[in-house]
């Protein structure tokens, strides 16, 4: 191509090229200059840094109200808020980089994993001071493999079969006690012109909850936890039984489950177009925001009477301290505050769909849904944290999500899905 003749294109004169280059170099120093006054994190012992994934407006304001109430010893909290999903994605790099003193996280496998890798600070002393504010099950969920505590619970929310009271009253539905009753109920809903089970699997994780419920009811808590730890055979008869049961539910599923977001599915329940949904109280509660008193739930029905409905899946959100924390004292004080009833109730004022973790909380401020959740969780013999928090996250996000998607897209592929899961489990858990 011929060289463009001079004058063909508008040109910059030499001075402006120089200006641009200098401006460029100057701008590179701006972030440094702008940060000049802020000081590095935690150098000031009056400040506690707080890594937060409460990124959306409602939780963000709620947590801010909580932090504003922290008045111990004249300490102030600087919050570093990152988008919820990004925070989780970056957690490994974050903890090895220069993490904040205190950060939000979840109970379960991942928490234990960080502890065993030396990324979390042992806060057993804080736990001793907390005394009997928490149940044995909650303490167990906050304990690492070495028997020390690393996590402080904040709130939790149960997973169950949720429905709209008014819709069920209108058609005269009753909560199913057994799996057969569930199938019958679903067929009745279809006959009445509703979608039986609202399903939104576009984000990949919601149906992991359904797997958990089916496995807990079919094979019990101990087998479930063992399977999550990679110690059971995915190709075995027990897991196959779970999927056989699942196949019976599939005719009740909303169509295009794989292409719909769970928010839209929940909106269908709210609008009276869908009969019921396997989901967590926090998720569907936020969709029912204006009509919360219309939301009700029942336990996922019994499949094997040996287990009944003894296990409740109720993920716990809370906080941990990083091993590299700069202000250890301040951090522990913040954790103590966050574990207190006042802090938790302050948060729940903006989120009336979850329940506080602290047992000493005054339930007078709870709405009907929350009171039912408290009773539901307290009656549980075992509590699980949800599949992606109970097992290796790579296995959950990669193998399980995609395997279940494949099954939902083609239920007859169950054998190849299970052998795929078995191979990946072998590769991830022992390899």
């Amino acid at each position, binding site marked *: *191509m011929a060289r463009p003749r001079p004058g063909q294109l508008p040109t910059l004169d030499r001075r402006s090229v120089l200006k641009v280059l200098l401006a460029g170099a100057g701008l590179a120093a701006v972030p*440094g200059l702008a940060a000049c006054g802020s000081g590095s994190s935690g150098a000031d012992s009056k400040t506690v840094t707080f890594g937060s994934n409460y990124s959306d407006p409602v939780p963000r304001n709620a947590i801010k109200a909580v932090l504003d109430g922290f008045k111990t010893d004249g300490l102030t909290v600087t919050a570093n808020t990152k988008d919820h999903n990004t925070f989780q994605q*970056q957690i490994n790099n974050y903890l090895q980089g220069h993490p904040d003193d205190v950060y939000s996280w979840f109970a379960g496998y991942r928490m234990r994993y960080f502890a065993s890798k030396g990324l979390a600070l042992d806060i057993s002393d804080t736990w001793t001071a907390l005394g009997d504010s928490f149940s044995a099950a909650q303490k167990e969920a906050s304990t690492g493999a070495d028997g020390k505590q690393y996590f402080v619970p904040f709130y939790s929310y149960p997973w169950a079969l949720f429905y709209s009271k008014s819709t069920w009253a209108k058609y005269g539905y009753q909560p199913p006690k057994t799996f057969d009753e569930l199938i019958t109920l679903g067929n009745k809903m279809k006959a009445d012109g509703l979608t039986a089970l609202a399903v939104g699997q576009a984000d990949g994780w919601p149906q992991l909850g359904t797997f958990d419920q089916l496995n807990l009811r079919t094979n019990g808590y101990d087998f479930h936890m063992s399977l999550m730890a990679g110690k059971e055979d995915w190709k075995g008869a027990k897991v196959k039984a779970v999927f056989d049961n699942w196949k019976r539910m599939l005719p009740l599923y909303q169509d295009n489950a794989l292409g719909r977001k769970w928010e839209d599915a929940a909106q269908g329940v709210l609008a009276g177009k869908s009969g019921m949904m396997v989901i967590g109280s926090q998720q569907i509660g936020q969709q029912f925001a204006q009509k919360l008193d219309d939301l009700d739930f029942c336990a996922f029905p019994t499949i094997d009477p040996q287990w009944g409905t003894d296990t409740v899946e109720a993920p716990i959100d809370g906080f941990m301290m990083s091993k590299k924390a700069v202000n250890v004292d301040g951090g522990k004080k913040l954790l103590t505050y966050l574990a207190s009833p006042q802090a938790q109730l302050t948060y729940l004022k903006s989120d009336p769909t979850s329940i506080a973790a602290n047992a000493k909380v005054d339930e007078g401020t709870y709405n009907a849904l929350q009171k039912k959740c408290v009773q539901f969780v307290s009656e549980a013999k075992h509590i699980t944290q949800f599949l992606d928090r109970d097992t290796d996250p790579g296995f959950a996000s990669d193998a399980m999500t995609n395997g279940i998607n494949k099954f939902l897209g083609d239920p007859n592929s169950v054998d190849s899905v299970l052998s795929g899961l078995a191979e990946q489990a072998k590769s991830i858990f022992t390899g």
Partner: protein
Amino acid sequence: MTADTLASRLVTAPAPSLTRQGNRLNATRVALHTFLVLTCLVWLAPLLWAVFASFRTYQDTATNGYFSWPRELTFTNFVTAWTQADLPHYFLNTLVITLPAVAITLFFSSMVAFVVSRFSFRFNLTLLMVFTAGNLLPQQVIAVPLYRIYLLTPLPSWLSDSGYLLDSQFGLVLIHVAFQTGFCTFVLTNYMKTIPKELTEAARVDGAGVLRQYWQVILPLCRPALAALATLEFTWIYNDFLWAIVLIQTGDKMPITSALNNLSGQYFTDNNLVAAGSLLAALPTLVVFFALQRQFVSGLTLGSAKG
């Protein structure tokens, strides 16, 4: 083709008869224009659809669906996106990353192009090949070791308030420079090769060192190419998505592509709001595009058409 051969061809060939190329309106032309107009309408449809959605309220589309006449058209979404997502702050972040990155990239690549095009060293070809190949690698291939390098490299606090290359905007600038230098070097080398050697010879004989030759002779002549590349690089670096996720840990330091995530709720997505926010975020590139189209085009083509 160099300017010389093209000129000589035009001199010897018969003069093109302008009458045959006039703007005449016949059936072929009408058909052509119709086809082009239809194609362009179809082409713009997706973008217009997003613009349409962004001007409607959430309640409106939730009740009536998107494929309906709007009850009202409003700027609310744009205002909410601007304030709720704190867009001005993220725009500034993006500028702080993009402008220095573009400037330094052009600076570096023009220097390398100068050396490679003016002087024949043995390593010239290898160097050029290394740079060009480096630009074509997929980003995922280098993400993990890059993170490690960044984690371990300390920086003075005036360059990075985290104290390290990791989680600093300077770090993002640096990786953009490293990645984009290849393409710009390639383009500028080709461009500089068309500048006659006599000019730098003359300057050298006049006593100018290589630095002066570069700064006062070659660089001014490259203005069109530099402008073109600047436009192109601005767009590419601005639109980048992956590096911030890997290399930035503090929410407040992220460029605008990540800020849009704040708009979609943890548990809920308002498509109209996200559409408005995305369009706002795309505005700088669109402005640059419309204002500097010719540079953009020549930037893309300078690197490719070796006449």
